[in-house]
């Protein structure tokens, strides 16, 4: 694994290695060692062509705890308006000697362009590309689920996870479907029919339009952010109707099975896809997802950059 562009880049064993490494790192850095020298002298660039403070800070914290040098490169807006700038930027990063680029970009596939071309030689880590994927988010979600519900198992076999909301536009959903099913979980996608991607029937998941029938059957429920502008694109009639059918409110929290956890990749639209009391309930692991994110991203950085400059896979 030279890059992390898609969950498809990972075998089941590699995904588990990332989760295992993350739990070890969490234990070390929560406990005895705040900082590790592992990536001293290596340069990691955060290339964020789209605003995402939380993901950027998470990667930055992960890199710094591993003693890497971090350069933040905010290219917001420049890339989509001028086609050539992604290439220009890549060549600049190459000249700066970046060992890895963490890229967030509004265009699906932009990390592939960065990695696939002769533009630069460093590792590329996809931190969310358009409506395609967000692999590190899925890994931290799987990590969170395993930690709470895994009962010591390596994978997520037998666990039932519902992902609710704008599946069509969600990179978090795409990566999670790939990863959670790879790890043996049973995934149910819940959304109005307008917010499913074409051909979703062929995905290895269950499809439902009815949140209330799914709620009692799951071990974890992941609420996706719904963007207000989707309403104007006629995906649903009104925010109020969306919340009524697909929002997580107190009644639905009460209908969850007693050990189920509530997740959200953030940032939340409180009152739209999730009510404040659902987000803040005892079942919610939303805040914990954020801290888990740092450990998982440390694991990704270590496994991509901690060894010799590799062509092959993780050993």
């Amino acid at each position: 694994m030279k890059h992390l562009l898609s969950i498809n880049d990972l075998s089941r064993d590699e995904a588990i290695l990332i989760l295992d490494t993350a739990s070890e790192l969490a234990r070390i850095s929560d406990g005895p060692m705040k900082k590790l020298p592992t990536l001293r002298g290596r340069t990691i660039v955060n290339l964020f062509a789209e605003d995402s403070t939380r993901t950027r800070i998470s990667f930055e914290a992960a890199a710094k705890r591993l003693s890497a040098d971090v350069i933040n490169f905010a290219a917001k807006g420049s890339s989509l308006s001028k086609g050539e700038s992604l290439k220009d930027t890549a060549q600049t990063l190459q000249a700066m000697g970046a060992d890895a680029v963490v890229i967030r970009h509004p265009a699906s596939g932009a990390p592939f362009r960065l990695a696939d071309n002769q533009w630069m030689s460093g590792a590329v880590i996809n931190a969310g590309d358009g409506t395609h994927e967000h692999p590190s988010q899925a890994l931290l979600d799987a990590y969170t689920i395993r930690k709470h519900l895994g009962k010591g198992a390596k994978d997520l076999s037998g666990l039932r996870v519902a992902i609710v909301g704008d599946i069509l536009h969600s990179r978090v959903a795409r990566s999670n479907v790939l990863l959670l099913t790879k790890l043996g979980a049973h995934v149910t996608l819940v959304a109005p029919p307008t917010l499913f991607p074409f051909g979703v029937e062929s995905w290895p998941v269950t499809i439902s339009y009815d949140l209330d029938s799914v709620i009692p059957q799951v071990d974890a429920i992941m609420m996706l952010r719904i963007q207000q502008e989707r309403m104007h694109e006629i995906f649903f009639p009104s925010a109020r109707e969306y919340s009524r059918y697909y929002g997580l409110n107190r009644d639905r929290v009460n209908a969850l099975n007693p050990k189920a956890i509530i997740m959200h990749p953030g940032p939340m639209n409180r009152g739209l896809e999730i009510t404040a009391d659902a987000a803040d309930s005892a079942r919610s692991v939303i805040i914990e997802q954020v801290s888990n994110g740092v450990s998982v991203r440390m694991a990704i950085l270590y496994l991509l950059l901690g060894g010799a400059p590799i062509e092959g896979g993780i050993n």
Partner: protein
Amino acid sequence: MSYLLKNITLPNGTKAELAIQDGHFVAASSLTKGHKMLDMGGKQVLPGLVDLHTHLREPGFEESETVATGSLSAVRGGFTAISAMANTSPVADTAGVVEQVYRLGQAAGLCDVFPIGAVTQGLNGQTLSEIGAMADSAARVRVFSDDGKCVFDPLLMRRALEYVKKFDGVIAQHAQEPTLTQDSQMNEGEISAQLGLKGWPAVAEEAIIARDVLLAEHTKSRLHICHLTTAGGVEIIRWAKTRGIQVTAEVTPHHLLLTDDYAKNYDPIFKVNPPLRLESDVLALRAGLADGTIDIVATDHAPHSSESKDCEWAVASFGMVGLETALSIVIKTMVETGAMNYEGVAQCLSIAPARIGRYENHGQSLEVGNVANLTVVDTAAKWVVDRDLMSTRSKNTPFHGFELPGVVTHTFFNGKLVFGE
């Protein structure tokens, strides 16, 4: 210069020789002294190929292609007539612009360049351009198209279809329902869903084809459907033809070979409008071309500068160059698969497009007295496409590195050897 071509194979498979003098085919016995004798060693000849759908980018985008470089690319690909699409800058929506393009073609002198006129002013989709003036100009425009954009307004489409009847013209429709394809990036299917690229449903193409064949029936006018890409579209055309509707249809070489699978690495070299579809569509297009439902192959040669492809998929331009690979792709997908022989190739790449465009002196039989527009192909030879060795000014071929059958060795235009030696 006069020529005697020995040892050639005609489209019907018979061996023959061809004599060319003063721009025409003549009897070998009437050749004057000093002609050049070329032994073709049994190679295939075809009437000079005719492309009904070419983007030459001049005026306005000369960094991507000019009429002259496009003409050179054409003759290397075996074409003796190409059709310059109207989406230049300024748009070819007046007699002045179409005459300019026509004269640039004449000046280049390698092949005929027939301008296509815009249906609407500035391709705005709202107001008819001066179609009559373009038809009456020196360029004698017969084909009108807003290609790149769909003539979406049904009333305007109806009027355009009716209006061109005055001079036996044809409306070439780029069938793309705009509201269903807002910001669309690739075929809507399992792959677009996986890649997170906005889908372009087949129905967006088929809905317009269905509407327009019904309008053509109602107005008893000639309609041509550009670049058919879906199995459903083939079915609609087939149905329309059984009803006697005057509709013709084209398919591009790339839609005969490539599928949306090629989008998987996000390389925009495979980004094209209309998009690459499914394997089942490719097979339906080949079957439609073989049985005559689809009349012609047209290149939709669309040169783009490297900056507009060397970027993110969503930012990249749509389009592929195709003049120099078209014949090879047709041989690979139609002849080598047994779906078509060289009479069929002559039909879909020369005779039928010349007839649809009403292009005189093209797509004619290789008989004494006819203008000598002629292509010689070594069908047994293979070549590897190299974008750096092509004559087009742009490098955006999706076939770079592909090994393809069929090497064009000679192209004669009006009896002149314009390519080969």
